[in-house]
């Protein structure tokens, strides 16, 4: 369903763009292709790894480790893991989906996705340089705390 929406929007936008400016649209498509090629190796690896992991790990095992109720420390751990990892979210989201399909709870997955996108340990040097120590420390610290809150809220409402 969402795939239909995305594809139709993309099609409409491309047609509109070509109508407005041919050259710009060509450049945009080139950017899309080169971005796709940049992501391709990781996406291919992800697809292969998902297949191999699920062939070996029965869903019951994933349910046992990542399913059920979660303590504050466990969710905090998932949040920290997301903060230090440097995975493009376009790769991380299918991975998160596969874990949920296999029986993982939404709470740790939500914590992971939130810090993965909002807190960037890897980009901290850039942030320090541009925005200074204070803003960087507060922004990342608060984002880490709120990620845990967001995760528990999602766990409650879903």
């Amino acid at each position: 369903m969402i795939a239909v929406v995305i594809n139709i929007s993309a099609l409409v936008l491309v047609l509109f763009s070509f109508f407005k400016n041919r050259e710009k649209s060509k450049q945009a498509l080139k950017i899309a292709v080169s971005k796709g090629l940049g992501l391709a190796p990781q996406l291919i690896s992800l697809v292969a790894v998902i297949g191999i992991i699920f062939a070996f790990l029965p869903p019951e095992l994933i349910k046992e480790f990542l399913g059920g109720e979660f303590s504050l420390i466990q969710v905090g751990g998932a949040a920290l893991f997301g903060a230090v990892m440097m995975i493009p979210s376009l790769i991380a989201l299918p991975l998160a989906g596969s874990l949920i399909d296999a029986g993982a709870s939404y709470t740790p997955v939500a914590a992971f996705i939130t810090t993965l996108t909002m807190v960037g340990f890897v980009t901290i040097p850039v942030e320090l340089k541009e925005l200074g120590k204070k803003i960087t420390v507060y922004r990342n610290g608060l984002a880490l705390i709120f990620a845990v809150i967001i995760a528990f809220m999602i766990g409650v409402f879903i």
Partner: protein
Amino acid sequence: MTAANNIENQNNKNKQEKMTAEKKQQKFNQNIKKTIKTIIFWGIVLAVFRYIFPDRFPAAISMSSRYLKEMILVFPAVLVIMGLADRWVPTSMVEKYLGHNSSFKGKFLAVFLGTLPTGPMYVAFPIAAELLRKKASLSNVIIFLGVWASLKVPQLGVEIQFVGLKFSILRFIFTLISIFIIGLLMEKIIDTSEFTGAE
């Protein structure tokens, strides 16, 4: 004199464009090579896997092909939207609209401009610094950064496809609320005069 300068500028510009084009082409070729290598690598792994565990192989292939199919359904479109945004929404526009707006309108713009499918996080930091220098309020800048990082429109599409609609809506709402709270808290705590005063 100005004409000569113009010609010189034009030449430099052309040179620069040519260089970035060459660099892009190089990167493009590298990525193609990397993709081919990855395919070969996993092809070998799967062949070995099939040889050692013939009974588990069908399960692995059906799982992989399911995800491959879902990816092919959404990723090309998402990438095209991102590419279009890259050309049509220049970062200078973001600066223009966020620079002097305060209060509610500014916050609304910060959210809206943040969700647009523009570049990665390290592009957003220099923009944020520039906005602070232009006396945009800290809360607006933090909101802009947070939304830019977490709530991009094409990524939400991928999230709905793979994780689910309800999850995505809940995460969007709670994250947006959190980002506002973080922005307002930081505005209370941090004094940004060093940005506006130093220049």
